[in-house]
């Protein structure tokens, strides 16, 4: 900006100011001026829910920064050493170098424990942030064209984040994470035919072997975060390229973005927000202990503890295993461990179910237009119901993953919880779907009521003849616009079942399915027609309000 204003001033004699010369030098080599000019005034809409992605980005940066510090002291080796550090209840115990160095980081390295805790808390918050961000995008329909690819990038970031988290959680080689790695080994072993080979390949021999910490280390600090960083940059470039979505409102159309420019306003806010995120995570890490490996002890395959769960983002896979009946089939001296293999197959399905939804929706609706105005969840009842059903599914599995703690803390039988989860796995999403859809339709009806009759003011009036009425206040023009801005689809018609010659038309099965789904989306009882101008005029033209 200083360059722009400088050019308007009369030409000075002598050298230009240092800042200008540096900018010129850089521009001549990097071409940043035109890039900056094009993007610095980029508009971003203001809404707290648009900042969830920022929470993720900042916690990711915090994870990288703290992670770099940890690598300076961590030894990714499984060589056995005897502990001689400052934590007395482990004195003289045999442990891997990885565990030993994690203890060293926790007790002897300056700031080590705080950095470790920031790293771990930030990871949990990063994944939780991505989950919430993904749900925000889902429920507002922000994944629609042109953002489908970005939706997939985000989804991939979430899945890669899960595995980066898992490999990081396994690095200290403590009894808790070792049990988790053992769990993973069991899942791999359950794969028919190749399972054993895969396991031996991954662990460099029989579990636990002497390799996995070093291997997980390079996956955790190099491979996965590298891919994630690339994806995140691509994700952001696409956000820039598509421009940000916005909620419906007066003056907001599919062709504009109403908000603040990136520079200076949004940059200042975003920069400040980074420090707020860092601050909150640092405070959490300073207050609350996470993964106290010294209390957990070093990993030994002959030891195990109750309450051994993965971090929350892997909890649903734990739930899948815990509630699955221990079925197995034996034939010709081989065992097919269905009790583990089926959960292993459902694990990706749970994730894929939410990832592919945008494509199913666009196929059903046949909508190929661009959408930059967000939906209110209630105005897309089927989508909202699907999302809630999926979340219910996910959280039911999380309950399954923590069934022992639910049992001890609510004085319940663990068997009862397991059976509850088994049944709820099938029933709860259906119930959630039906209930959510009803609620959405109810809210649509309320919106319609509000548009036509105004807001309930809570003022009760007594008329001269004794009747009591509640005074309804008409909505403002802005509110009316916001409540009626969404567009409503009509269900897909298959057309006449016979052609012009009276011969039965052949309709392909996918088309029939599509028509059926479309009816379920936009059929008669699946959305409340929004008030029309005529209805509004008729009601507001005079004759009372009810």
């Amino acid at each position, binding site marked *: 900006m200083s360059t722009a204003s400088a050019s308007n001033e009369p030409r000075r004699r002598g050298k230009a100011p240092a800042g200008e010369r540096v900018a010129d030098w850089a521009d001549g080599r990097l071409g940043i001026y035109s890039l900056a000019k094009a993007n610095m005034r980029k508009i971003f809409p203001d809404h707290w829910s648009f900042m969830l992605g920022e929470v993720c980005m900042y916690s990711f940066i915090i994870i990288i920064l703290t992670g770099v510090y940890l690598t300076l002291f961590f030894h990714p080796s499984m060589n056995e050493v005897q502990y001689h550090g400052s934590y007395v209840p482990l004195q003289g115990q045999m442990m891997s170098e990885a565990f030993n160095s994690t203890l060293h980081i926790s*007790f002897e390295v300056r700031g080590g424990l705080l950095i470790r805790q920031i790293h771990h*808390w930030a990871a949990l918050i990063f994944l939780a942030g991505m989950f919430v961000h993904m749900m925000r995008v889902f429920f507002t329909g922000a994944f629609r064209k042109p953002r489908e690819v970005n939706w997939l990038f985000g989804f991939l970031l979430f899945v890669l984040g899960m595995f980066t988290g898992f490999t990081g959680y396994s690095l200290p080689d403590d009894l808790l994470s070792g049990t988790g790695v053992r769990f993973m080994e069991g899942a791999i072993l359950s794969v028919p035919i190749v399972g054993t080979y895969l396991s031996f390949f991954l662990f460099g021999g029989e579990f636990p072997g002497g390799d996995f910490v070093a291997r997980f280390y390079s996956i955790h600090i190099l491979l996965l975060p590298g891919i994630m960083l690339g994806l995140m940059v691509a994700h952001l470039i696409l956000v820039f390229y598509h421009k940000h979505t916005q909620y419906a409102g007066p003056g907001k159309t599919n062709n504009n973005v109403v908000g603040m420019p990136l520079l200076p306003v949004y940059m200042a806010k975003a920069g400040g927000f980074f420090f707020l995120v860092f601050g*909150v995570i640092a405070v959490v890490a300073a207050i609350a202990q996470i993964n106290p490996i010294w209390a957990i002890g070093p990993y030994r395959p*002959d030891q195990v*503890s109750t309450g051994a769960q993965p971090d929350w983002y892997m909890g649903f896979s734990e739930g899948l295993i815990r509630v699955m009946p221990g079925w197995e089939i034996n034939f010709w001296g081989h065992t097919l461990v269905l009790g583990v293999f089926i959960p292993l197959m459902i694990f990706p399905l749970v994730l894929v179910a939410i990832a592919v939804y945008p494509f199913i929706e666009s196929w059903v609706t046949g909508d190929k237009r661009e959408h930059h105005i967000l939906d209110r969840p209630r105005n897309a009842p089927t989508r909202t119901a699907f999302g809630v059903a999926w979340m219910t599914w996910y959280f039911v599995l999380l309950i399954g993953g923590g069934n022992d703690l639910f049992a001890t803390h609510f004085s319940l039988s663990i068997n009862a919880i397991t059976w509850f989860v088994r049944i709820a796995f099938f029933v709860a999403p259906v119930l959630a779907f039906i209930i959510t859809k009803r609620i959405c339709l109810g809210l649509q009806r309320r919106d319609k009521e509000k548009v036509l009759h105004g807001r309930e003011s809570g003022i009760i009036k007594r008329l001269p003849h004794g009747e009591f009425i509640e005074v309804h206040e008409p909505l403002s023009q802005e509110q009316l616009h916001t409540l009626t801005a969404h567009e409503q689809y009509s269900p897909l018609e298959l057309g006449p079942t016979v052609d012009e010659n009276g011969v039965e038309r052949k309709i392909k099965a996918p088309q029939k399915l599509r028509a059926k789904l479309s009816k379920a989306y936009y059929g008669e009882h699946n959305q409340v027609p929004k008030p029309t101008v005529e209805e509004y005029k008729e009601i507001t033209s005079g004759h009372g309000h009810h």
Partner: protein
Amino acid sequence: MKKLSERRRHPLAAIVVLLFALAATGGLYTAFAPADKAQADSTAQSLAIEEGKKLYEVGCASCHGTGGKGSSDGPSLVGVGAAAVDFQVGTGRMPASTSQQAQVEKKKNIYSQAQIDQLAAYIASLGAGPAKPTKDEYSPEGADAAKGGELFRTNCSQCHNFTGKGGALTDGKFAPSLEGVDPKHIYEAMQTGPQNMPSFPDTTLTSQNKQDIIAYLKAVDGDETTNPGGLELGGLGPVSEGLFAWIFGLGALIAVAVWVAARTAKAKKS
């Protein structure tokens, strides 16, 4: 001497000899046996057993049957030993209010230590079993906490959690938290295996091993245990950590986001 030999066939001679013999053996016995103490002890012991029996009949017999033979409501107590009584009654688990619960839980103990000892004496008299440990046996003083930790993770943590926070068992049963449990009771529990717990007699875990475990628990779950990382969050691992991250971590960040978003720069009026 003649007089004596003359009367050797007297009808009362046999009685006199018998009296002498009795006096001699009695005298020898009193001379050699630690008579006083034994006498006093056995009376005290039998008194304790007697008192214990009375207490047993009031508080225990309805379930465990007369003479500790057991009934449909409670197991036989023959051979459980004084240690089991001291644990069960000392932690308030016995007498249980009902046998219908999944598990008999710890509650306030209503017996004095003297009464518990009497009950223990009575139960011990029914059949040999582990005796109450002495303070030297269960005190964690000078024991190896690190060794105890290793033993704990090998033998105990599968039910009681890494640091003895407890865990769930089947059908509503559970392994209780070991926080704040008297070392004596931990020792007795290991020795006798109450309820669902397996027993670890001295042949499995030596007295020294048990002491090490007690020392470990004192170090990681005792009154003086510090958590270098801050709040312990129950010591339950990733479930409570995950909840904390969602509620306080992400919750706070969303609150901050709402706050930041609400502070918009005002557009310049032009």
